[in-house]
């Protein structure tokens, strides 16, 4: 891709003016060198653009929001006791049986989530690189922000914290356990054993606060990225974002606190 694009729409580009312009370009304001690429099918073509990546970011973000919400609500069963909680785990494995064989629906969801995660992280990485290239020499004095929030300026850090936590969380409660006694198929006991360790409980709380920050900006931002902008509902977008973030944080943080307080106990 170059500035004087071949995707000309039939207008008055080219000619003498363009020559002068490109002569100027050689000296000042030359386009950032981006990789030259072969034409590709349109979804790939869309993803190559920054705006397309933002769509992917937003759509995968919505999928992840759905997962985070369902995960939180499902875990509330912890408060109904071990039988109820473990039965919920069993329900997930038996989801859509007999339409699908055992575990298949769960695996489909897992694959969907993995794909969403990979795309979300790849898009955020690529956009971050694009942004770095767009200002190679930073401001030498302190920039005074008028609208950007702490949440919006730390998206990549809150995202990285959530991502790393997620890997740890999978080891902790799904795969192997992380030191505390771990029994496959008994998530209630595993949760209690793991979160009874104070540093682990603190880690869960911190990671969920990071997730809350991420969602506070993300679940507002996605409306703009998706082009969902209408005077009829615009004033609800901010409210939605902070309510959603608050529900997730309060729900998720309640688990380590309940374990430490002895409400959840084997």
């Amino acid at each position, binding site marked *: 891709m170059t500035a004087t694009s071949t995707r000309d729409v039939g207008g008055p580009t080219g000619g003498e003016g363009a020559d002068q312009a490109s002569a100027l370009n050689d000296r000042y304001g030359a386009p950032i060198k981006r990789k030259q690429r072969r*034409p590709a099918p349109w979804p790939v073509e869309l993803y190559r653009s920054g705006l397309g990546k933002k769509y992917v970011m937003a759509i995968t973000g919505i999928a992840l929001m759905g997962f985070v919400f369902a995960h939180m609500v499902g875990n509330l069963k912890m408060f109904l006791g071990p039988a109820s909680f473990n039965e919920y785990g069993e329900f997930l494995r038996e989801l859509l049986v007999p339409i699908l064989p055992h575990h298949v629906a769960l695996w489909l969801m897992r694959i969907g989530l993995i794909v969403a995660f990979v795309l979300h992280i790849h898009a955020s990485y690529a956009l971050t690189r694009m942004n770095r290239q767009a200002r190679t020499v930073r401001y030498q004095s302190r920039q005074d922000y008028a609208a950007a929030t702490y949440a919006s300026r730390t998206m990549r850090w809150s995202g990285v914290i959530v991502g790393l936590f997620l890997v740890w969380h999978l080891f902790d409660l799904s795969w192997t356990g992380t030191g505390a006694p771990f029994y496959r198929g008994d998530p209630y006991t595993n949760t209690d054993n793991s979160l009874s360790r104070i540093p682990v409980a603190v880690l869960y709380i911190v990671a969920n606060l990071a997730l809350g920050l991420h969602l506070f900006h993300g679940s507002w931002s996605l409306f703009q990225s998706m082009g969902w902008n209408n005077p009829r509902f615009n004033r609800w977008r901010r409210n939605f974002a902070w309510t959603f973030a608050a529900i997730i944080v309060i729900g998720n943080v309640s688990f380590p606190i309940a374990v430490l307080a002895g409400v959840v106990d084997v």
Partner: protein
Amino acid sequence: MTVTDPDPREATAARTDPGRTLDVTLKVWRQAGPDAEGHFATYEAPGISEDMSFLEMLDVVNERLADEGVEPISFDHDCREGICGTCSLMINGQAHGPERGTATCQLHMRTFSDGDTIVIEPFRATAFPIIKDLMVDRAAFDRIVEAGGYITVAAGSAPDANLIPVPKVVADAAMDAAACIACGACVAACPNSAANLFTAAKAAHLNLLPQGQSQRYQRTETMVDTMEDFFGSCTNHGECEAACPKEISIDFIATMNKDYLRAKLKNRRYLSRNG
């Protein structure tokens, strides 16, 4: 003639009275040329009238620097009434300074207090290279406008007035977008150096009107693709809207996003041929 008429001599006296003055210290970015090493230089600016605009204050400082044999500070300016978009400057970390909805040329010294230190930096973005001191080259914006900022019209005899009906609200929205003076403050203020507000405004003032419909999607696509050759991507911080001297709304960015997706869908056969 009644006795209540003001004495014309008094009126003149009021006009020449400098009013409240302030002493400020400037920390200004000095850079001899595009590839030269830059640095902050400190200058005292005593006795500045609070009625001066920011640029008039710089004129006064430059006058003195010239007298002292120091190279005056280069900065961009033209109309000095907020309509041309030539003035720029990051003033205390904010594009066009602390006042909302004004360009640097409309910023007045009364916004500052006696004894303030004012830090002045050029707009910074890879696509806005520094020419000298505080002057930057914003030609990348021209590339974006070239990429799609025109409409097809039937040339020939002059059309009748009001031949194409435009609803009032639509005309108003298009006018809001057309208020963009291409100053680049949106890029300067954006943590990502994104030009989405500028591009969205330039696309919207044509895309909203009936006259702009025939190339609406192609225009959006080529303008956005050109934009991305130069600038960063939008994280929806909203910093651009806060810095914009014309208070262009980020609503236009959402519209541009929607049009861009539609463009990619509508033009996909075209794209598969052309890349």
